[in-house]
């Protein structure tokens, strides 16, 4: 018979110690919306569940020195009701509102959504377009990784088994203030996205200073469309440019066909979502 | 109260179960092992309906501590028949109309099993004497004695398990 243990560490340090000791045998749990179905389907077989929901230091939304720090245990509903997020980082609020359904949003966490590393992770996309940094700790060690380098494959990240995500950080800036998130799914709630797209734009007198474009469900990992970003930089924003960029978006994404949509539709719709987002931001 | 694990053979199968030192055998059999054939009549050892066989001997399960059966062998009424084939005493009880309300029947049959193992050729008086601890309110005992008596001539065959 299976032998699974459960531990609920009282401090972050205690959690890190357990991870150091158990490594691959451990599975961190918080919102559980992925872990429990995976356990049931025997997709994972950990020997110890490390429940970090009691770690108060990993919760909350903090503003400091022109930055925002999200505790990884911040729930999706806490994001939605945060005034500062709505005012300074609307792209994140928009995405959170489209996340799963109102009940799951009570328990699902930002950190959980990132470490699950689903290509369709709805929060990864706006966080990519906010140019977020992931703060990682292990026993006696710390490091920071740009989210752009965090995901490596479906379900996989650069995180080592003894490491814990302790924060997600992004800057307070003009570009982060001006963002738009778009999602298309098979239905309007509880939908795994067919495609998502987030744009953050900084422009003056019709010229794009800086643009960040992120997309989900259209590649093995959530990704930044750096090619299109590069192409648009310092250009005058007009209809022709948008049309050209739409084609480039469709080319830069790298989707597969599955039961939800074909590769062709995903490429096409990514372009459309981009166009809609840029139109909304430019108006 | 701390529970202790005991192991015993119940109707031929090995069972492990955790019991408290003050748990009565009847409760363990009925509530934990779901064998409700063993009946509860008085709780004071006065009526015999809770009789089970402990290492072949009839005991009143309402007066027996569960913990004392560790390592021993228990037979309840459910353990007598071999699949669909009834025990000869069960057959004799049915044939002679020795079963009315049926509440004393399990205890009666188990006590009778022990009797016949000890004394395969028991006389009617010996039977009456041996069975005196098992009360019956329906039958007036006539058919019960008759049924047991009928089995005496069967000798030892198949009566002891």
């Amino acid at each position, binding site marked *: *018979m299976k032998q699974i243990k459960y531990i609920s560490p009282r401090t972050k340090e205690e959690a890190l110690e357990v991870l150091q000791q158990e490594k691959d045998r451990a599975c961190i749990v918080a919102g559980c919306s992925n872990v429990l179905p995976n356990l049931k389907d025997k997709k994972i077989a950990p020997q110890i569940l490390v429940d970090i929901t009691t770690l108060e230091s990993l919760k909350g939304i903090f503003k400091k020195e022109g930055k925002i720090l999200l505790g990884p245990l911040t729930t999706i509903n806490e994001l939605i009701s945060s005034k500062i997020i709505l005012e300074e980082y609307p792209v994140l609020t928009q995405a959170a509102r489209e996340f799963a359904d109102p009940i799951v949003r009570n328990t699902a966490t930002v950190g959980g959504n990132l470490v699950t590393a689903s290509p369709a992770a709805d929060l990864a996309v706006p966080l990519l377009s906010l140019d977020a940094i992931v703060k990682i700790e292990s026993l006696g060690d710390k490091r920071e990784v740009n989210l752009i380098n965090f995901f490596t494959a479906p379900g996989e990240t650069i995180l080592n088994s003894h490491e814990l995500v302790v924060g997600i950080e992004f800057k307070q800036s003009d570009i982060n203030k001006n963002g738009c998130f778009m999602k*298309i799914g*098979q*239905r309007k709630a509880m939908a795994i996205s067919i495609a998502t797209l987030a744009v953050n734009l900084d422009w003056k007198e019709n010229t794009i200073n800086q643009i960040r474009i992120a997309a989900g469900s259209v590649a093995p990992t959530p990704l930044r469309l750096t090619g299109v970003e590069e192409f648009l930089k310092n250009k005058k924003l007009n209809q022709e440019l948008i049309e050209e960029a739409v084609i480039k978006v469709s080319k830069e994404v790298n989707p597969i066909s599955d*039961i939800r949509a074909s590769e062709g*539709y995903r*490429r096409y719709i990514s372009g459309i979502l981009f166009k809609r987002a840029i139109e909304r931001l430019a108006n | 109260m701390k529970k202790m694990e005991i192991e015993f053979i119940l109707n031929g199968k090995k069972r492990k179960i955790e019991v408290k030192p003050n748990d009565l055998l009847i409760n363990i059999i009925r509530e934990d092992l779901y064998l409700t054939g063993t009946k509860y009549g008085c709780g004071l050892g006065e009526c015999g309906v809770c009789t089970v066989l402990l290492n072949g001997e009839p005991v009143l399960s309402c007066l027996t501590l569960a913990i004392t059966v560790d390592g021993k062998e228990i037979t309840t009424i459910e353990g007598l028949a071999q699949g669909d084939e009834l025990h000869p005493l069960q057959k004799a009880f049915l044939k002679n109309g020795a079963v009315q309300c049926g509440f004393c029947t399990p205890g009666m049959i188990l006590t009778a099993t022990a009797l016949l193992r000890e004394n395969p050729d028991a006389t009617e008086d010996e039977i009456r004497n041996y069975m005196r601890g098992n009360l019956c309110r329906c039958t007036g005992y006539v058919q019960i004695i008759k049924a047991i008596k009928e089995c005496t001539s069967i000798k030892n065959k198949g009566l002891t398990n």
Partner: protein
Amino acid sequence: MSQLKIIGKPISRDDAWAKAKGELKYADDFSLPGMLYGKVLHSKYPAAKIISINTEKAKQFSGVRAVLTAGDVPHNETVTRFGQSSEVGKGFEGLYRVLADKKVRFMGEAIALLAADTEEIAEEAINLIEVEYEPLPGVFDPVEAMQPGAYLVGEVDSNIIAQFGCAQGDIERGFKEADIIIEDTYKVPFVDHAYLETESGIAWIDENSVINIRVGSQVIEHFRDVADVLGLPHNRVRYRGTMMGGGFGGKEDITVETYLALLTWKTKKPVRLVYSREESILCHSKRHPFIMHYKVGAKKDGKLVALEAELISDAGAYPYLSPWVNLYATVNAAGPYCIPHIKVNTYCVLTNNTFTSANRGFGAPQPNMAYESIMDELAHQLSINPLEIRRINCLTTGKALSTTGQTFKTYVALPEVAEKAWEALGNPTRIKDKYKKVGQGLAIGLMSYGRMTFLHDSSRCYVRLESDGSILIRSGIPDLGGGQVSILCQIVAEELGVPMSKINIYYSDTALTPLAGTTTATRQTYMSGNAALKAAREIKKRLIYKAAQMMNVHTDNLDIGEEKIIVKYKPSQYLPLIEAIKACNADGIELFCEAQFNGPFTMTPDLSNIRGMIFPDFTFGAQAVEIAVDIETGEVEVLKLVTCYDVGKAINPLSVEGQMEGGSIYGLGYALMEEVIIKDGVTLTPSFSEYIIPTSADVPEAKAILVESGGGLGPYGAKGIGEPACSIIAPAILNAIYNAVGVRIKSLPATPEKIIRTLKGQFN
């Protein structure tokens, strides 16, 4: 009859309180001492030979009490039945194998059963059963399966298991007379019932050696089939039906009952078995996919002259109810239209896909989608308004159904319902969003209620008036959530003049309640409602007879109401009901009655050309929708949805509206998002994250318009509504999409991708 007091009022249902409080116990909300947990081993292949099954490891596993394979089932091969109590209508049954033997026919087919002390042990041990397979090629497309030389799914020499035909007039002449001919092929997919309660139950053996099965089943008469499998007399198996957490036809076939019975029989212990959602989607029946080729001819003025249809359906791996479903589809193939020249041919074909059977609408939603799309196309090509073209061609009172020639003697609410639905839609909504286009669509239809007349259907009900004036009803009626049980209480309350609160009903028990037949075919209000009415009226007659003596008033002048026997012409003069009861009891007058109601009986028809009465009666309706299509993404939002049916008489308007609203949303899912994707026999949508059904965020607030003609065969003139309500919403939505963006989607579901593909051709 004086004015109705309880019938026709929106009353709170009898079962609603228990459900609101969480007190209602569904099939598996129940435990028994010493209960074991059952588990089913399902086939990993859609088509394979079973070379060997080794159960030793599983049997040795600590805590496992039984492992059963085909060899352990006394009568493993039997036939599926449909709950009929007589031999009438035989000949439609197909092979039913409890556990796969030698060969598997679909992925998910049951191969072995296991019972263990705990759920965890059962889950672990089931994987220790070793099955050696030799995969076979299989066939997964019905058209391919029809060809000579195709892989044979079963043991007979053809995969075609049923063929039906309907013809009238001269089809060739009909097309010659036509000014316009439209020819097209339509496709509909596999659909899951997606009831929220998966298949589950508990079985045990009682002190009479009777196997009791506590289960949610639409057909408790299956107790006979379970007994036959075990080789037991029918009276040794008892179904104790519970309220179901939804059925929609999916609990019409046997689900887990035989497995439960076998495991409890073998272990002599109570056994609980609950399907996971994945097992449910993988293993229970699906709605039939159809490929429908239609050719329709009309005159310039829109008048239909000819219709030819070829329908091919995928039966999946076992027949189950496929022949019956296809017979329904055949009769429904020309819809509610008068067409002089008709030819319909239907083929039902086995494949190695999950088996298909009953699903709300039972063969009607499929052809409805095709003919109503064609009618819309015809209207478009002839520049006739969609309502007008239906007005020109629809059936009316006294006319006959084009497929079978069955004549409608009572009121046919066409085109009335169509006009009302269309009007309720109002003017198209204006939307500012430049990417959205609004469209409106209409569809009309008819659907039978009550079982096919050659099955000689009947229902029974027992009513007893107690000495204190309370009432006890016993009826075998299964309730799948539509309020079937409550309807009977209402009818008896009305007839015997007692409040609903004084009625108690026992339902769905094959040992103790008179059998009321299946909760299928939208038949219970009609059949069991009439049985309850008959029993109540018999008791009423006896009460009035006694009261007339006591009051010295002629029986004709007495009526019952509000627990009184009242003089009609002088309501102040009355006898309290309780006094009449006392007098009857003193005189030995029986205040109980078990009544049987029989539907109309006919002979089995010629299946190659089905003519005459096949169904007792039909319900007529229309559905109209307004949608907005996003012309760039292809997303469809349904803005308005109107359902208008002639329900005859709404016994409980709240329940009737519930059926109409719920049915239309069930149909909305069919139209826009639902599909069980089965590729080469493998189900790719095994959970609720892949099999998508509508959430509250996806649907408009459906509007229900009730027409009450009083022309139905049910009590007080009621008709059935459960299945009709979902059967034409899909074409209404497709027609609205056409109206909005000018593309006709010919296969369901109409996903955004499909719409964009049709609208723009290939993506680039």
